[in-house]
Structure formats: structure tokens, C-alpha cells
């Protein structure tokens, strides 16, 4: 069985450095693997053991994004691929999903299962995974907590949302988005690091993915940012020490 995991390199939003003009200082802000994507890798690696699966990690990004692929190989993935082209830069969800779907169609057509994380910490749109499935015309389910069973035709998963626990059966090939905080990612082993160092990371550009110049990046993205500003909802804070006073304020409300 062939499993593809889509992962993303994101800026560490918990530790953002700012320029004096209130812009994000990208040179000083660290890049990390999107945390739930690491859990997606873990979910795939657990299937590797049970189903003798071949796991490929794929990311779209600049050449620096190879770092997250190194991490994936070190964790135990069999293969990795970088989707890299200056014409991919500035892609929104719609354009990104086009590139990711093209990588499956053109380079990994015999994929049985695609796993993604539920959302990325930088954009948090939670759309890209589903959009890839719609483009590939395959069934998908989000919020997956557990893969119960896979056979050549079907996959059975347990999904959990705020209100429901649901067992789904999907025709294969399929795409699943997994929930955060469920699949605790394993730590890479020494031999994993060694493999990650030696591994020759293939990179595919626009032409190799059979995409047109207007389909990706800024040109292929209908949404665009007209303005970005540092979030500010400041209030006038009155500091008090007397807790009896605080108790009265709360009670009077």
C-alpha cells in the first residue's frame, strides 16, 4: 500500500519576532514543521508497521523546505519529494491544492491513501486537504482520530468532532485529515538521521507537474491580501489590588 503524507513548513507562530514597523521579521522567526503534520506522519508510520505500507512525505515550498522532508525521513518515511518552483510562491489554498493534486497525478499515481493534518498553524484555514481530495475526485473525511482498518477497496476510520464520534467507511483511494493531539509523534532514531542525510531529495517544478504558468502562485490565486496589520484590540487596563473590590465589581455586573 502506498501512503502519501502532505506536510508543511510554517513559521513558529508561538515565537514571532517583529520588525520596528510591526511586520513579521521572517529572517529571525524560526521555521518548523507544522505540528499536526508531524502527527499525520506518525499516523502513517503506524500503518506502515501493520500494512507494510510505503510512506512518502511531500511538501511544497522553497528549497529550504527540504528541512521538513529530512525530519520525515528521519522519523521513518521511505520517500520524500519537494514541490519547488518560484512560480508556486504566493499560492492560496486553491492554487496550493492544484500543485499538491498534480504531484499525485503526475508523480505518485498509484497512491492509495493521502493523510494530512487538520490545519496549519500559520493560515489555519483547514481547507487544503479537502481541496486536494475534491481535485482528485476521491472521498475524504476530516477530524480522524483512528484508522480502524484498511483493505484494497475500503478504509474504515473513526472521526471525532465536538459533537459526534463517527465511524466512516470510504472507498479507496481516499484522503483523511487527522486531528491534533492524537498521534504523538515518535522521535527520530540515529539510523533515521543517517538515512535523512544520505537521502537524495527529488524536487519537481511547474513543468514536471504538468501545470500551466497561470495555474499556480500569485497568478493562480484568486484571493489576495489587500492589507495586513498587527492585530490590536487594546483596552485601558485599571490595575487593582483589593480583591474585595474586585469581588464587588463581579457581583454588581
Amino acid at each position: 500500500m502506498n501512503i502519501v503524507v502532505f506536510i508543511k513548513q510554517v513559521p513558529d507562530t508561538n515565537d514571532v519576532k517583529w520588525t520596528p514597523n510591526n511586520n513579521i521579521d521572517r529572517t529571525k522567526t524560526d521555521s518548523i514543521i507544522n505540528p499536526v503534520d508531524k502527527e499525520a506522519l506518525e499516523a502513517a508510520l503506524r500503518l506502515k508497521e501493520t500494512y507494510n505500507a510505503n510512506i512518502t512525505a511531500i511538501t511544497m515550498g522553497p528549497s529550504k523546505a527540504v528541512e521538513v522532508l529530512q525530519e520525515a525521513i528521519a522519523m521513518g518515511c521511505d520517500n520524500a519529494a519537494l514541490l519547488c518552483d518560484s512560480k508556486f510562491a504566493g499560492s492560496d489554498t486553491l492554487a496550493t491544492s492544484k500543485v499538491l493534486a498534480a504531484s499525485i497525478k503526475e508523480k505518485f499515481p498509484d497512491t492509495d491513501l493521502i493523510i494530512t493534518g487538520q490545519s496549519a498553524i500559520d493560515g489555519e484555514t483547514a481547507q487544503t486537504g479537502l481541496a486536494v481530495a475534491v481535485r482528485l475526485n476521491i472521498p475524504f473525511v476530516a477530524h480522524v482520530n483512528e484508522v480502524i482498518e484498511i483493505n484494497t477497496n475500503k478504509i474504515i476510520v473513526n472521526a471525532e468532532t465536538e459533537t459526534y464520534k463517527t465511524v466512516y467507511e470510504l472507498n479507496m483511494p481516499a484522503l483523511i485529515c487527522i486531528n491534533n493531539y492524537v498521534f504523538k509523534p515518535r522521535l527520530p532514531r540515529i539510523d533515521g538521521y543517517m538515512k535523512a542525510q544520505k537521502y537524495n531529495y527529488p524536487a519537481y517544478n511547474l513543468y514536471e507537474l504538468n501545470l500551466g504558468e497561470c495555474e499556480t502562485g500569485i497568478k493562480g490565486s484568486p484571493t489576495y491580501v489587500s492589507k495586513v496589520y498587527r492585530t490590536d484590540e487594546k483596552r485601558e487596563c485599571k490595575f487593582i489590588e483589593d480583591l474585595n473590590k474586585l469581588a464587588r465589581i463581579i457581583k454588581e455586573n
Partner: protein
Amino acid sequence: MEPNGILIYGELNEEQEIKTVVYELLTKARELKEKIWNQAIRVCIIGPRINYEEIINKLGSYGADDVIIVSDNRLKEYNHNYHPEIFTQIAQKFPPRMILIGATLQGKEIASYTAVKLETGLTADCTDLDIGENNLLLSTRPTFGGQLTADILCSTFPQMATIQENIFKAHSIENHSVNAIYNWIDIDKIDKRINIIKSIKKIINKHDIQNSKILVSGGAGACQNNGFALIYQLAQKLKAQVCGSREAREKGFITKAQQVGQTGKIVSPDIYIAIGISGANQHLTGIKNSGKIIAVNKDKNAPIFNYSDIGIVGDLFEILPELIRSLDNIEEENDQ
């Protein structure tokens, strides 16, 4: 056909009533409609065969010009195969300029599906909507973990946005006429590739944090040394609900349903008491509609104080027990 109108997804709850977010979106759509010329507001309902008259009239009283209904008894519950495809087909039959959908679980799924099928842009989890340059929909959303706010435009039609529940206030209007349009879609032609084997409804706390007057909320600071036990005590004293930050959720002190913030819930209590919460922007996004914000934090430079009305600097393990005692004293005084 020239795209016209604002199409809203009329999500039904399990009792087959329209969800509140739909009325919130209708209220906002009326405001948008005033700024762009000659646009109809349409609501699309996908549900079972029931009498929709009352629903249609109520949607009308919130400003819907047309209510498009696709009904079939196979649509009694949300169906992953049918609902997204049916909504897409409606958006093709009545090409709108804009599509607004509540950012609920099913709303998000329908929005993603429709956007790809129609090859158009979608802005998710918006916190405000307006009309921008060239009469385009201007969607505002927090990004970068909430540290930045972005105004986003879309160059293709329809322009799509999903909006969190409880962001806009719903107001009805008087004397607004509404048309019902019953539409038939061949459901048998839709591929059925996703089956539900079984589904269990979780027992949910009926005191939803979004309907709570007072919220006591814990962050990273309360995750140590059983701080949440004090938070629960204080909440009980105030007949309040407990909620928390993303860190509290990550550490397992609260459930997803109790998480406040851009990726959790947007709350609007009269009083929000933030305990041991430093004030990451993604959390602040969720609380900015609160009446009074009270923050307890031992770091006087914590960003939360910039966004609070009342600040108490100190150790929550000293402050909360004393506050609970003070509340007890007030109760005793009132009893006498």
C-alpha cells in the same frame, strides 16, 4: 448569467431549525447589500421534506429575498456525499456574486468543496466582512496564529467566505417580502463514496460557553500545580462556565468545546476572567467581544493586560482563594 446576489447556506440543526449563524449572516448581508447595487439575498436550505413555511417567513424577517429549498428525506441529516454537491449545484444554477457560510463543521466542508468545484477563492474563519475596491467582498481574518490581521479580496466570482458563529449580531426587520423557490436536484446521480457505519452523539455540556454570562478561563499559568481546580471552584461560586486557552486544551485541562480563540470558540460573555493567560493573539480574537475582561497574571508585562479592563498582578494560587473568600463574604452580607 451575470453573477448576482449574496447566497447564504441555511444550515439546519438537528431539530430542523435554522442555526443562529444564518440570521447573523443575513443581518450582515443586508449591510453589504446597501453598499452594492441591486443584489438579492438568497438562503439555500438543504433538508428533509417538511413544511418550511415558518422557516421561510422567519428568514424573510431577517432580510432574505429568496429562500431556495432542496428537500429529500435522504437529507434529514448532514450527508458528506450529498450536501456539498447539492450546494455547489445551487451555486451554479443561481450564480451569486458572494457566498457566505457559517464556519461550522459542515459549513467549512461545504465551502471548501464548492470553492474548488467553482474554481474560486475562499476566505475561511472571517471576523468581519465589508465591501472593498471595485465592489468586491472584503474579508477580514486573523492570520499567523492571530498575530496579524489580514484584509483579503478575491478576484473571481463567486467570492466566498466562512464566518465564525457569534461574530455578528442578528437583527430582524419589518415588512420584508420573501419568495420560496423549490428546486429539484437528482440525488441519485451523486456518487456515494462515504458511508457512516455508526455515529454516536457525545454528551455535551448543555451550558455552552458561547451562551454564558460569566466565563472563567485558564491558560498555561493555571496548568501547573492543579490551578484548574481553583478555576473550577471560582466558576462554581459565580455560576460561571469554565473555558481556556489553546495551551490548556493541549495539556488536557479543557475539551475542544471549551477552547476559546480563533481556532476554538468566539465568546461574548458579560465578564471574562482570564487566569494565567498571557494573551496570544489567537486567544484575544476569541474574547474581544466580551463585556468586561478581567485578567489575573503574575507577569505585569503579560500582553493580556493590554487587552483587559481590570488587571490583578499576582500569583493565582494566592489570588483565587482570597477572591473566593471575598465573594463568600459579600454573599453573607447580602443574606443578612
